């Protein structure tokens, strides 16, 4: 019975999403085949998958930290952008030095940018009672506008006529793993971060603090734990992870930031985290699955122009079906007692 309870929500989610394809007049079987091919059919597909998995994974891990602490951070996208933006600012301001700096520095700066941005919301919730669920999204829009302003103004590359920042020199970009595809070393970060986060959450006292404060903040307080600090800290770490994703995008794939920087990865990472059970290792699986789906979504164009939007809808339907099943099972369990 315990097994059923764990598996059923995923099964229902899969079923419901399959139905979604039918609504768009796409055969689920054909779609699966085509998506699989696009996700792992050849080395380019695998590279694409890994590249798309990375921001989903890192932001997903960020969501895990915050949500487990009981702070509803839905501003992963803004924190990602803040990370990339800070990276670009430092590059521009650093002048000659920045050009010689290691790309990993930009990844770290990205993390800092995200941490700072998230801490605004963290402080607002802990000290002003402003719910993170609202403040983080509002901050998303603010940073987006800030980005747009910067790339068409102070950060704009003067030699180009378009809103893009100066390009990072090759030496400052993350090393390529595969000469022929775009795969870069940044994809490793997520796979290193996940077990590290697992360790932190389940094997350190701070991690216990985070989980306990999220499970029952009043009991945490009665056990003399500093709940506000815990929430602040987890928001900062959450933002750090999302900002790192931004740094990786900047120093790994793009080399410059522009008006098209936001691809909604931060937002799409939320269902990834939830479907991964808000567990670091589960999120790895979830991020790979959806990274693959998004990578393969270009192939879907053969059947429908909906493409990646359909995958987003797929994510949403899966999430809602998952939640509905869990809620229903909880209700049944309650009355059986």
């Amino acid at each position: 019975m315990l097994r059923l309870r764990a598996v059923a929500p995923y099964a229902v989610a899969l079923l419901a999403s399959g139905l979604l394809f039918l609504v768009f007049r796409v055969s689920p079987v054909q779609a699966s085949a085509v998506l699989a091919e696009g996700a792992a059919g050849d080395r380019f597909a695998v590279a694409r998958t890994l590249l798309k998995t990375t921001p989903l994974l890192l932001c997903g891990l960020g969501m895990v930290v915050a949500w487990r602490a009981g702070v509803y951070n839905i501003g992963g996208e803004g924190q990602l952008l803040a990370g990339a933006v800070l990276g670009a600012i430092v590059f521009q301001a650093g002048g000659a030095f920045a050009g010689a700096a290691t790309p990993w520095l930009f990844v770290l700066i990205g993390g800092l940018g995200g941490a700072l941005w998230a801490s605004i919301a963290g402080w607002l919730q802990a000290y002003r009672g402003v719910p993170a669920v609202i403040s983080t999204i509002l901050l998303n829009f603010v940073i987006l506008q800030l980005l747009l302003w910067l790339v068409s103004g102070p950060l704009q590359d003067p030699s180009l006529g378009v809103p893009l920042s100066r390009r990072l020199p090759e030496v400052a970009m993350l090393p390529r793993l595969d000469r022929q595809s775009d795969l870069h070393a940044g994809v490793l970060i997520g796979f290193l971060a996940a077990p590290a986060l697992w360790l932190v959450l389940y094997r350190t006292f701070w991690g216990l603090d985070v989980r306990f404060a999220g499970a029952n903040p009043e009991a945490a307080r009665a056990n003399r734990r500093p709940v506000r600090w815990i929430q602040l800290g987890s928001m900062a770490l959450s933002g750090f992870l999302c900002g790192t994703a931004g740094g990786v995008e900047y120093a790994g794939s793009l080399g410059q930031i522009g008006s098209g920087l936001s691809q909604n990865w931060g937002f799409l990472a939320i269902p990834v985290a939830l479907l991964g059970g808000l567990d670091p290792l589960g999120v790895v699986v979830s991020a790979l699955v959806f990274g693959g789906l998004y990578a393969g979504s270009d192939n879907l164009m053969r059947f429908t122009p909906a493409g990646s939007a359909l995958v987003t809808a797929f994510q949403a339907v899966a999430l809602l079906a998952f939640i509905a099943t869990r809620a229903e099972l909880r209700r049944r369990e309650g009355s059986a007692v």
Partner: protein
Amino acid sequence: MIESLAAVAMFAAPTALAAIGETVGQRSGVLNIGLEGTMLLSAFAGAMVALWSGNPWLGLLSGGLAGLVLAALVGLLCVARDADQVVVGTGLNLLALGLTGAWFRSLFGQSGKLFTVPTLPKVGFWDPVSVATPLLAMAALWLLQRTYWGLTLRAAGENPVAVEAAGRSVPRYRWLGLMVSGGLAGLGGAHLSLVVSGTFAENMTSGRGFVALAMVTFGRWSPVGAYAACLLIGYLESLQFSLQAAGKGVPQELLLALPYAVSLLALAFVGRGVRSPAALAAPYRRTK
């Protein structure tokens, strides 16, 4: 002067409708994070129906209906069962994003197509929805303060136990609160595509649903207060156009950020002072 007032009222209307509805919903104890998604889907539904039928009123109605359907989804998951309201709302937002994107692209191709939808007839500078919105705000206020229905609804959001002790059903009032929230947000979304922009574009709501949530708090959970707060936001939105026209040197992006930043500041300063409905977002289980 009248023209700019009408412009402000028009810009404010979508967010205001969502905020008014959500005020009623939150007073009953339900938090609808999915406002953004509701507005987006309703904007799409309204635009499409208006386009196909040639009748903007039909479009408006469809928007409202779409809102009701989505609110029912939230109700099934959060009121009839005890799913987390934030998770469900976020899922709803994602669903709207995906569905509208997918439908839009399948109908109009990958890059989209610019088209105009039939818009509501205006009287002078005023469209009917912009005029109706403040009236709806006052009607909602009257309903909440002067009727037994409103009284019970407010009690359901403050102390559901008291409502049960009075022999009434808490879930019923929360469902009704949700319906008002979804229905009005739906009308707001349809107004956005039919009147404010005259077209549909992917992700066109741009966070208005979240601004509406902030305005509910800023308006201290009064429908009229929320409307007034949204007028402020509408004014900030209209600034984009008026300042641009005047050729002033304020960067457009910063103007666009203004509504969000102001909402944040408003929340930060209101924050500690007011109490939200005491039972907000707490799932209620009927005592046997």
